[in-house]
Each structure stands twice: as C-alpha cells, then as structure tokens.
C-alpha cells in the first residue's frame, strides 16, 4: 500500500497532524518516506475533495484533520484492500 493519499488519510485517522508530522508518522507505520512534493500533492488533493480539512493555527505549519467524508472513504478503501489481501493470502495458501 503506497498510495500517498491513503497513507495520509491513515495517518490522520489517528490524530490531527501537520505535514512534517504526517511524513514522520507514515515513515514509522508504513516504512515509506513520502517526499515533500508527493506529500503536499496528496494533501492538496485530499483537501480539494473534502476528505481532510486544515485547522486554524497561528503557526506556518498547518495541521489537518480527517473529515467525516474522508473517514468514510478511508474505511471503504481499507475494506477493499482487506478483501484483496484475504483473496491473495487464500490463493497463496492454495499454492
């Protein structure tokens, strides 16, 4: 699972974070380092789709939170991945 959007959504599912915190968190839980361009490309895309939302902050670092729509989308995507995962494992078991 290396889709940057999904990784960002998964990171924000735990708590609100700013860009650098998301980058560190994704590196920790997925072992994938998102480049700054990739990360912000994903953040802006998710923001435009209404799946995440920027929170008010006095800092230049903008924290983001997962919206209800974003949470629903993440759940949907994860169940789809889980389905593929289960099918793959089952088939591997057959071999």
């Amino acid at each position: 699972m290396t889709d940057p959007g999904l990784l960002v959504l998964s990171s924000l599912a735990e708590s609100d974070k700013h860009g650098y915190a998301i980058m560190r968190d994704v590196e920790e839980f997925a072992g994938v380092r998102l480049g700054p361009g990739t990360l912000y490309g994903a953040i802006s895309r998710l923001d435009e789709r209404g799946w995440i939302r920027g929170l008010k902050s006095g800092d230049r670092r903008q924290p983001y939170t997962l919206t209800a729509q974003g949470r629903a989308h993440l759940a949907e995507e994860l169940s789809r991945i889980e389905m593929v995962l289960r099918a793959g494992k089952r088939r591997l078991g057959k071999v």
Partner: protein
Amino acid sequence: MRTLFRLAMRIYPKAWLHRYGQEYAALLKDTGYRLGDLPDVITKGVMMRIESPLTLVVCSIAGVALGACFHILPAQTYRAFVEAQLPVAGLDLKQRALGVLCQPSLGLFIQSYNLYREMRENYPLEYVVAKMRREDIRVGLLPGNRVEVVFRYPDRLVAADVARDLAVELGLKLDREPTSMKLYRTWLFMPLGLLMGMALGLAVPKLVRLH
C-alpha cells in the same frame, strides 16, 4: 540548498502556492532541505502544471510522429561534395573563390548546365545567381589544409558535375569524383516535434478553459 528549493517552488502554480505555499515552505524547512527531496519537489511542481496529462501525451506523440515524418521523408535535393588538398603554396583560395563565385562566372555555370530552369523563367538571372551563391554553394576549409566544395541541387548527376567543375575552376586537384547524396532532413525534427507537442499539450487545456 535553500535557494534551490525556493527556485523549485516557483514551478508550482500561483494559485496552489497562494493556498499551500507557506506550509509547504515550513515542511521543506522541517525536513532540512534534503538534496534527495529536490527531484520530488520539482516533479510534483511540473505535474501540477499539467492540467490534462492525456492531452499532453497525445500532443507529444503527435509532435514526435510529425518530426519522424520530416526525418524519414526524403528531401528533393542532393548534396554533392568534393574534397581536395590545397595544391601549391601561394594559391589564394579566397581570391579564386571570389573570381569563380562572381556573377558572370556563375551565370555561365547556370546557362551551360541549364540550371534552375523554372526559376529563370520567373526571375532575372542576377536573382538566380544570388540564390545559387547564397543557398546552394559552399566552399570551406577543412582541417589538414583540405578544401570542401559543396553544391546542392535537385538532380543527383548535375549536382555532382557542378561540384566537380566548381572545384576545378577553383584550381583544386581532385583525388576522386564528387560524392552525391540525398539530403535528409535532420533528426533534430523529432525532439523539436516533441517539444512543440508538449508545449501544445500544455497550452490546449488552458485555451479551452479560456473559451
């Protein structure tokens, strides 16, 4: 390094920078401006500029294909060239060239070989001579004290004959007969086509949006 990243950020669309520029700059600062991140920052900036990747790909392919057509299609011109060693010392090639490439001398060439028939019907001889001298003849010095005489003409045999006679008139002793080859258009048409296709691919979505 910071300057490089700032320059890379200029690639991003203005509207995007207006919304995310500050926080993006803060992220770059937090990551310590890693050189390894620079390609990622540049690539994403370029990708954001591309409004319609499909149009870009289609236009780029069309541009390369058009360039390839220009490259493959043979031009209706032959390039005859002859190389010779500069003979005796004291032969002033420049003086000889001035004499051979002058109006009366080239006029004689044109008439004796019946060159540029169609053009001569519509233009005065002076104009045809000037065109011949400017576009079709080249006399140049090569390394090793050698001289090259080139003549371009749509007829392979005539091109070779004229190149040979020009060289003889210049006082050059030829070691071999002129070589005449079909003039292909340069392979540079392909990258040029690609660039033009890409420019068109980037411009089309913007134009469509404007209308």
